[in-house]
C-alpha cells in the first residue's frame, strides 16, 4: 500500500513554477502489479521518481513501508567507462548487497553477458545495457520494483525471461511500471493508475484502465 498525502510537486521554469501535482491525496494497493499510464508530460516519470525517493516533493509525503528499488530506466547509474562488472559491484555496494561476489555472479548469468561482462559498458549495445541494468535490479530483493520501459529493448528471449522472473517475484513483491506500450503493460501488470491533469485514478481492472486511457470501449476478454 502506498499512501500519498497532500503532495505538491512543481518544477521551476521560465514561465514560473510548473505544477505537476497540487495537493494530491491518493492511496493505491501494491499487492498487484501496477502500471502507471498517462499522456506525455502528465507526470508519470515524476510520480515514479517521487515514489523511488530520487526526488522529493515540495510539500506533502509519500508513505509506505515497502522497500522500493531505484527507478530502473535505461541507463541509471551505469558509467560507460567502467566495465559491466565494476558497474554491478557499484550498484551492489550502494544497495548493501550481502555478498558482492555472489551478486556479481548472478547478474552476469542473468544478463547473459558472459565474457563481455569485463568490457567497458560503452562497448555494449543499448539492449545489452538494458539487460545489465535490469539484471542488477532483479538480483536484489526489493518489495516493489520500479521499472521504466527498461524491459522493452531486450530481445524476445530476454523479455520472456524478464517476464518469468517478474512473475516469480510477484509472489513476494510487486512491480510498478511506466510504459507507453500497452502490450507490455498487458504482459506484466494487472491494475492501472491513470494520471490525468494532475489527478490519479486507480483501476483494479487492467482492461478498464487501458480503455479509459485510450478512449476506446473495453475489449472483451479472451479475444
Amino acid at each position, binding site marked *: 500500500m502506498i499512501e500519498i498525502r497532500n503532495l505538491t510537486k512543481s518544477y521551476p521554469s521560465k514561465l514560473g513554477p510548473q505544477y505537476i501535482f497540487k495537493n494530491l491525496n491518493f492511496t493505491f494497493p501494491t499487492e498487484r502489479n501496477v502500471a502507471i499510464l498517462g499522456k506525455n508530460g502528465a507526470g508519470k516519470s515524476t510520480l515514479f521518481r517521487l515514489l523511488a525517493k530520487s*526526488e522529493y516533493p515540495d510539500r506533502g509525503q509519500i508513505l509506505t513501508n515497502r522497500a522500493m528499488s531505484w527507478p530502473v530506466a535505461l541507463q541509471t547509474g551505469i558509467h560507460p567507462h567502467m566495465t559491466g562488472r565494476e558497474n554491478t559491484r557499484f550498484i551492489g555496494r550502494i544497495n548493501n548487497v550481502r555478498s558482492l561476489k555472489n551478486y556479481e555472479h548472478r547478474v552476469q548469468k542473468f544478463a547473459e553477458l558472459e565474457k563481455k561482462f569485463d568490457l567497458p559498458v560503452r562497448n555494449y549495445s543499448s539492449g545489452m545495457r538494458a539487460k545489465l541494468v535490469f539484471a542488477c535490479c532483479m538480483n536484489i530483493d526489493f518489495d516493489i520494483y520500479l521499472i521504466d520501459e527498461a524491459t522493452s529493448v531486450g530481445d524476445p528471449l530476454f523479455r520472456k525471461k524478464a517476464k518469468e522472473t517478474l512473475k516469480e517475484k510477484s509472489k513476494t513483491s510487486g512491480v510498478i511500471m511506466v510504459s507507453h506500450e500497452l502490450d507490455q503493460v498487458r504482459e506484466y501488470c494487472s491494475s492501472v493508475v491513470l494520471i490525468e491533469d494532475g489527478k490519479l485514478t486507480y483501476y483494479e481492472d487492467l482492461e478498464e484502465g487501458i480503455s479509459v486511457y485510450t478512449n476506446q470501449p473495453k475489449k472483451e476478454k479472451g479475444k
Partner: protein
Amino acid sequence: MLSFSDQLAAWRRVIFALLLRELQSKFNDKLGLGWAFFEPFLFIFALSFARSFISGSEVHSMPILIFMMVGMVAIQSFMASLGAVAGSIKKNKPLYAFRQVQPIAAFVTSLFLECAIKLGAISLLSLTIYLLQIDVQFENPLLLISLYALMWTFLGSVGLLFGIITSYVPEINKIKNLFTRPMFFISCVFFSLQDVPEKYWPYLNWNPMVHFIELSRYALYPSYGHNGVSIEYAASITILILFFSLALYHHTWKRVLSR
C-alpha cells in the same frame, strides 16, 4: 528508526562506492592512478624550479623553490575545489536516482579525492627535495598540518557553496574563470605580502588564501615572518563559510535533486 551507527555505516558504504567508482572511471586509461599524483607534482615542481632559476635563491630568508611550492600547492588546491569539487554535485546527478546517494556524498567523495591527490603530490615534492638534497627547514610541522586541514575545510566549504549556486545559476560556470584567474595573482603565490607596501595590504589580505599561504611559509621558516596575516582570521572565515555552505545545503538539497 535507524541507529546512528547504522546511518554512519550506510554513509561510509556509499562514499566508499562512489570513491571506487571515481577511481575506476577516471583513471582506467594507460596512465592510471599514478598520473593523478604525478601531474600536479610535475606542474608545481617545474614552475617552482623555473622561478627559482630565474630570480635568484632567496626571498625573505626562504629558498624561492620552497616559497613557490607552498604557494602553488595552495592555489592548485583552490582551483581543484572550485573545479572538480564544486562540479561533483552536478556531475553525479544521474546517480541521485539511487536514494542512498545524496549530493553531499558525491561532494565529500570528490573533496576527499582531491585532498588526497594534493597530499600525494606533496609527498612527491618532499621526496624530490630530499633526493636532490635541497636544504629545507621544517620548523613547525604542527602549524603546517593544521593549516592544511583548515585550508581544505575552507576550500570544501567554498566548493560546496559554488556547487549549489551553480545548480541554480548555471551561468556561474561560464564566468567562474573570471574570478579564479586573478586568484593566481592576488594570493601571494609569486610574491610575498612583505614585498607589497603596507598601505596596499587591505586590498590583498581580505583573501583567506593569502593567510593560508603566508602562514604555511612562516611555519616552515619562522624567520620569514607573519606580518599582516593571522590564523584567527583564516579560521573565522572558514567557520563562517562552512556554516553558510552547510546551511544552504541543508535548505536546498532536495531541490537540487530535481534541477
